[in-house]
């Protein structure tokens, strides 16, 4: 599974994307954040305030409790500020 990061999340993690292979018990977007945070202190710090993080699965914006269900691309980003 590919993970994309944008804006200050990308800067804090010092990477725009990465490939990960989470174990089967990682079922939802929230699980994925927990799993990433448990393996990576930088990730845990950047994702400390979950309410500031938005997620997307295969180019659909979703809530944190949405099941991953074989999504190929997960994206994490801060609140959007376009327009």
């Amino acid at each position, binding site marked *: 599974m590919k993970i*994309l990061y*944008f*804006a*200050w999340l*990308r800067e804090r993690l010092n990477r725009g994307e990465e490939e990960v292979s989470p174990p089967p018990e990682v079922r939802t977007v929230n699980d994925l954040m927990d799993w990433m945070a448990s393996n990576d202190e930088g990730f845990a710090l950047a994702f400390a305030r979950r309410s500031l993080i938005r997620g*997307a699965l295969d*180019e659909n*914006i979703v809530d944190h409790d949405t099941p991953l269900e074989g999504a190929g691309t997960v*994206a994490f*980003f*801060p*609140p*959007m*500020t*376009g*327009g």
Partner: protein
Amino acid sequence: MPIKVRLQEEKFDPGNETSRFLDETTSDGAAVTFTGIVRSQKDKPVISMTLEHYPALAQSQLEGFALKAERRFGLSRVTIIHRHGKMFPGEPIVQVMTMSPHRHAAFEGARFIMDFLKTDAPFWKKEQTADGTRWVSARQEDDEARQRWKQP
């Protein structure tokens, strides 16, 4: 095609875009154009602004807002242009144009699209000032503006 969404790095000319939009119809009586502009502030002058975006999601989100607005208000035509990359105060960032037989639908449709675009289109503004760079924070007012459309 009644819905057009264009993401681009290059500066655009709001007047030219409006003229082109108006050229494409003879059966509608109302067109509304909204242009968003890079803004500086007197006390904290902005030197430049850089917009990061998530191209595939930005395209699909904007197309989705245009389609929803078209159906909800009965618009005949929608064009959205949104820039990314580096831009300067006074330059246009975004333009939303709606067309309908009568004015209310065109006004409402443009507002609807802009209210969703501000909070749900994946763009992130970073301002460059004399003190350095900073990511622009999301505004509570923008969330509230979008929320209003969810009430029946």
